[in-house]
């Protein structure tokens, strides 16, 4: 991709293309790179999902600090994609019984990848009187 980027910059320097066109072409190149490495976390993006819990509901402070690599989440969901259909249907029944209408059989690995991608922008803050929970990517 570096060579193609250089060619675009040379074309821009020679005046063969405008700055807007160069920007669009480089953007398209980066897009291609993004698709090629969709299964890997972006280098510039967050690498970890952090969960911080600070609980004082029992009068005593309890702190939990978990750092999960996003790669681990991806590997986990990819592995979950191998679960046989029958097992998913059984899990669906149990989930439905507990009142959550989610159909696991309709979740495709691509969807799960997208879900993990969107975790990178996730921030959850829960503030209660005695409990604070923060979930974010870093």
């Amino acid at each position: 991709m570096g060579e193609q980027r250089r060619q675009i910059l040379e074309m821009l320097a020679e005046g063969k293309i405008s700055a807007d066109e160069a920007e669009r072409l480089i953007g398209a190149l980066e897009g291609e790179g993004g698709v090629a490495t969709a299964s890997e976390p972006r280098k510039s993006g967050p690498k970890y999902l952090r969960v911080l819990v600070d609980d004082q509901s029992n009068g005593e402070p309890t702190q939990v600090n978990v750092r999960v690599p996003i790669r681990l989440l991806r590997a986990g969901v990819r592995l979950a994609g191998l679960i046989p259909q029958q097992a998913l249907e059984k899990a669906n029944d149990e989930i439905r019984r507990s009142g959550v209408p989610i159909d696991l059989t309709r979740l495709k690995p691509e969807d799960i990848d997208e879900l993990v991608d969107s975790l990178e922008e996730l921030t959850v803050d829960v503030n209660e009187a005695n409990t604070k929970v923060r979930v974010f990517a870093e």
Partner: protein
Amino acid sequence: MMPQLVSVRVQSGQRRSLRFWIPVLPVLVVLSPLLLVGLLVLLVGLAGARVNPGRAVVGLWDLFCSASGLRLDIHDHENNIHISVT
């Protein structure tokens, strides 16, 4: 890259903390005969459950290799537990 070291620190009350450093590769080498048997049992089980054994084993290995960077800290008034995979 597979994890190299798992460090575990446990402290309960006023006692001295216990620390373990587990070097992953040497432990894998020592346990390799058992792991081989376990792998065979796993492959048979996966084939029985109609799961592609090759993809499952690759997925498990990928999961294992991705664990590097995992960290867990739990502190309460009595206990401190710290687990880190590097």
